[in-house]
């Protein structure tokens, strides 16, 4: 590697000569070594203009970025709405981040420009323009890294890189980079470092096909950047150009060619179509490991390296050794908090390991990879696996870092984010840390808790990934409805802010945004189920419902001809009705919509009797719900109408057996005389062919779901059912067994016990005797367990 890096040719092609009008400084994003040498270069070159790679339309944010009050990490958040379909016909919205850390050379260059009061600016194409010039699935439009502006992937994905890693015996590109550029770089003179950077980046570029650079917009970006560089060079004497190393050669070629090129035309988008904001960012998000390949990984570790360089005042020889030692001690301390016993002997052994590895690997100082090796050797006791690798996970967290940045007071505040922050302050929600917080809300007794709950629901509706309800009534999915407290976990992430920025056009406050968005959403809804769900969501969010909203809802119910959608709507309105009473809420119309849905369903009900078996369960649920509604207060007046519909249903030919059973059960609930109908129906199944008999089991499932007391009263039903079951051949019995199991699952354990006792008596046995005679074959049991495991595994994989 050293031999390759001593390659002088490219360095001679792109001179790093301080007498030049334009001086190129190649960087890798977030690299402390690049920042270190860049500052030395600025000191010596004394530029009167600094140009930095980055979308040109973010120039307005430079004062915010470089303000002393701003605490990094922050990011520029770009969005572009392709309403004019310039990218493709999908007219989608696009967004991306450009993170800045303390280690970022771009940031340090701009800070220097501010301090020296010289001109500076970003020179790349605006974000939307880059997208327009990028082919599908290439460059910034790559699916995996859609939200990442920078293009370090050139450096780490080239064929050249693979060869270099193999040749140098490094495990990864990151390890190679750390050793040859970050650590060794600190021991080099700036011109030597820049020569190495240029050589490496040039060789990477040489191994990248031109078609790829064309397809991902790289070449057109360089053309635009070159135009900007030449323009600045006309009015300045010393222009320092700070760009990703990959572009240096391309830019140098374009600017030194002395050839008049046709000026690139760019679109003039308004701020609704394309804009950029400064937003807080976190190390966690910046860490390439976490999904954004925004330059170097492990920002927490290299931030400490950078601070060490800054504090060292020119003496950088001890920086890595000190940071590695500090990080090791922190890892030991954090492991201790997790009840792992890390002794002084472990620590001292780890120190000798990383020092020894540094020597055996011919490194000038131990780095992050030696640190990982030493923790693995000395802190992990026993086999390395998921249960023993906690120290490595802790180290990884420390290396990632947990800091969140903040913006200066002069930064343009996005009103909706401001409102969010104010509410967090008001309700004392901790959002200045990346750690997830948990809060229990007593929503019925504490008004403030109700407000917090509403805020969380609003944030969830806006898809901010801010809050998640971990316990509490799940109204939408009909789970745990009896819970009166809610437990939420919440965490402010980068996505929280970006999602709020995305919706900021809909209002200045979160409540207003939710109201506007829900009003827009209801306009597009066509199904009663979706519209009613939105109604529930609005209730949970504490959003007032407008008259327009209700008119639209009414219209949707009238036009919806889908039985199941109306059934779901009925569930939501019923739920809202209960909640309204519970919360003593005013201004929510539920009875009207309940009745409206109910009446539409009643008309369709008889025709559902021959419904496809897979929808029968849903149908039964709706029938039961309607039964509960008419036997309660809300729709009592509709009692006769519903039972007339049920009667019509059982007269239909060829009914779906489970629905038939369920409806008969409901009728039996209102009138005992229907017991005879049930007996006849069961006998019908009993005397039919084998196939009809099998339907008997399905019939039972439906029947038990609505009238299980029929089994518990007297013996007659048990005798008939027993006859049905005992007449099956083994093979047929096995076939209907799942249905039967499902049917009996409607009974409580004590009811099952009582049924079992009655069945045992039919055979002249007591229930104790039945229990005693259970014989279990170990092989069969083992096979069952294995099967269950396999099935569960298969499900979890799906």
């Amino acid at each position: 590697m050293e031999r390759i890096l001593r390659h002088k040719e490219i360095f001679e092609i792109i001179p790093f000569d301080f007498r030049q009008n334009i001086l190129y400084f190649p960087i890798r994003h977030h690299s402390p070594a690049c920042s270190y040498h860049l500052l030395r270069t600025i000191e010596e070159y004394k530029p009167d203009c600094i140009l930095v790679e980055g979308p040109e339309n973010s120039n307005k944010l430079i004062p915010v970025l470089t303000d002393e009050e701003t605490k990094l990490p922050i990011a520029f958040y770009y969005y572009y709405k392709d309403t004019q379909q310039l990218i493709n016909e999908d007219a989608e919205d696009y967004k991306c981040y450009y993170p800045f850390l303390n280690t970022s050379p771009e940031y340090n260059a701009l800070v220097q420009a501010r301090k020296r009061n010289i001109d500076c600016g970003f020179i790349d194409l605006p974000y939307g323009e880059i997208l327009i010039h990028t082919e599908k699935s290439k460059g910034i439009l790559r699916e995996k890294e859609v939200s990442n502006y920078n293009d370090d992937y050139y450096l780490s994905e080239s064929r050249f890189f693979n060869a270099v890693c193999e040749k140098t015996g490094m495990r990864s590109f990151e390890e190679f980079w750390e050793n040859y550029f970050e650590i060794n770089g600190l021991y080099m003179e700036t011109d030597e470092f820049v020569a190495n950077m240029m050589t490496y980046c040039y060789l990477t570029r040489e191994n990248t096909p031109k078609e790829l650079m064309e397809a991902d917009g790289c070449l057109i970006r360089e053309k635009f950047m070159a135009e900007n560089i030449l323009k600045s060079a006309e009015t300045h004497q010393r222009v320092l150009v700070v760009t990703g190393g990959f572009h240096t050669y391309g830019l140098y070629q374009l600017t030194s060619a002395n050839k008049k090129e046709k000026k690139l035309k760019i679109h003039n988008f308004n701020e609704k179509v394309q804009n950029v904001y400064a937003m807080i960012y976190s190390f966690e998000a910046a860490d390439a490991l976490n999904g954004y390949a925004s330059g170097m990984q492990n920002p927490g570790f290299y931030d400490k390296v950078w601070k060490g360089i800054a504090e060292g005042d020119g003496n950088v020889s001890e920086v890595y050794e000190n940071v590695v030692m500090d990080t090791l001690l922190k890892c030991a301390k954090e492991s201790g908090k997790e009840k792992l016993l890390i002794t002084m002997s472990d620590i001292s052994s780890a120190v000798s390991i990383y020092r020894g590895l540094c020597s055996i690997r011919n490194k000038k100082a131990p780095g992050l990879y030696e640190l990982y090796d030493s923790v693995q050797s000395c802190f992990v006791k026993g086999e390395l696996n998921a249960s023993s690798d906690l120290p490595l996970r802790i180290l990884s967290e420390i290396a990632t870092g947990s800091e969140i940045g903040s913006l200066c007071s002069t930064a343009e505040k996005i009103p909706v984010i401001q409102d969010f922050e104010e509410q967090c302050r008001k309700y004392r929600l901790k959002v200045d840390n990346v750690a997830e917080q948990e809060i229990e809300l007593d929503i019925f007794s504490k008004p403030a808790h109700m407000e917090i709950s509403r805020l969380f629901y609003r944030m969830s509706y806006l898809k901010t990934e801010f809050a998640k309800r971990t316990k509490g009534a799940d109204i939408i999915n009909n789970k745990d409805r009896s819970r009166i407290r809610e437990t939420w976990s919440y965490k402010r992430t980068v996505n929280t802010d970006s999602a709020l920025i995305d919706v900021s056009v809909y209002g200045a406050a979160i409540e207003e945004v939710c109201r506007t968005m829900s009003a827009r959403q209801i306009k597009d809804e066509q199904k009663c189920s979706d519209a009613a769900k939105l109604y529930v969501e609005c209730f949970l969010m504490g959003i007032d419902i407008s008259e327009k909203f209700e008119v639209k809802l009414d219209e949707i119910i009238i036009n919806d001809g889908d039985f199941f959608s109306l059934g779901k709507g009925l569930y939501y309105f019923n739920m809202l009705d209960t909640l309204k009473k519970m919360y003593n809420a005013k201004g929510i119309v539920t009875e009207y919509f309940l009745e409206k849905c109910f009446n539409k369903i009643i008309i369709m009900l008889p025709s559902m009797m021959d419904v496809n078996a897979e929808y029968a369960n849903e149908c039964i649920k709706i029938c039961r719900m309607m039964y509960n509604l008419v036997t309660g207060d809300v729709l009592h007046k509709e009692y006769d109408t519903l039972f007339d519909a049920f009667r019509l249903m059982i007269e239909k030919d060829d009914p779906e057996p489970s629905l038939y059973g369920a409806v008969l059960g409901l009728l039996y609930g209102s009138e005992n005389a229907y017991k005879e109908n049930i007996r006849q129906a069961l006998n019908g199944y009993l005397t039919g062919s084998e196939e009809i008999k099998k339907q008997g089991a399905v019939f039972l499932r439906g029947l038990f779901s609505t009238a299980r007391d029929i089994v518990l009263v007297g013996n007659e039903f048990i005798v008939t059912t027993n006859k049905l079951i005992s007449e099956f051949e083994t093979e047929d019995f096995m076939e209907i067994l799942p249905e039967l199991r499902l049917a009996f699952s409607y009974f409580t354990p004590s009811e099952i016990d009582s049924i079992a006792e009655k069945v045992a008596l039919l055979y002249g046995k007591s229930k104790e005797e039945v229990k005693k005679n259970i014989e279990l074959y170990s092989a069969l049991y083992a096979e069952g367990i294995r099967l269950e495991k396999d099935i569960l595994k298969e499900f979890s994989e799906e």
Partner: protein
Amino acid sequence: MENFIKPPVEIRYAEELEALKANDDGRKPENWQLSPKAVRTFILGSNKAIKYNGKSIGIKKKFFGNDALVERCIITLAGSRGLMLVGEPGTAKTMLSELLSAAISGTSTNTVQGTAGTTEDMIKYSWNYALLLAKGPVKEALVPSPLYVGMTKGIITRFEEITRTPAEIQDSLISVMSDKVLNIPELEEDGLVFAKSGFNIIGTANIRDKGVNEMSSALKRRFNFETVNPVKDVRLEKQIILNEVEQSALANNIEMPIDTDVAELLAITYHELREGVSENGMKIDKPSAVMSTAEAVSVFYQTLSNAWYYEEKINLAELTQNLNNAVCKDTKDDLERLKAYFNTVIKFKAEKLGGIWKEFYDTKKYLK
């Protein structure tokens, strides 16, 4: 070199070790034969040949798959802690410990073999009872154990299969590892044996194999642990099979070319059966038997030696039978799994790739 079935590492690679020693200008820990860097070169190989005795000696890579692990092992042994190599059976833990011992101490044979029957005196020392009766407890009557030898000579003691030894017997190492002293009370004032520099212990242990014991936390604290995983890269596994079979063939005068296609076929087969998924994503029911690279080497060598003595060339039917014998040991289910593998994955490859895979598939009748 005399003809041994499996010559020890220091004999097998004597020339490489001598060449490295003669050219080694790195700093050596006390009593080490080579510097840590030279030990690394010995195990991980070098692109550059070394001039020695007028010859150019190439240093071959001997351990594949995880260079960083080897480096950590070397540095651990230069420190005060022992080295414990853990992992599934057949992942070359023993080979690595032999290579390390041979390069560091010049011998890989100072070894305690752990079994369920290992006793404390096998680890520390025992007595020649005839001499003990004749002369009483004197040094002359003491039978030194490999641990004793390691301490007195300042060399590495290898403790194979340490977890097969009962936990209370394993714990007899604790004081030796902490204080670097072995107490022999019978010898009274001469009874303290202090470890010389260069002494250390390399343990190997199967964590998940049948019949292994737990290791106490106190003992664990005296070791740095390194987990040796099966080789994930099929290319490397093929290379290991080729290297090992070549070495064994050489030692046993089998002068037959090693068929690289067969090595590749075997590497892929073992890799797929171990991982439970084929190259093209088909799911495979994994056999319960250990599908280690060492087993693959053994299957290939068996087939090669059969070909050398009885046939002209490698016979795939013989290979399949050896594979059958290696896989189907513990349970009948493994035979069914192997058959299923042939009927799905190998059949697919036979149809798609033909050639050796077709020949291999045609031997499925030998799976019994």
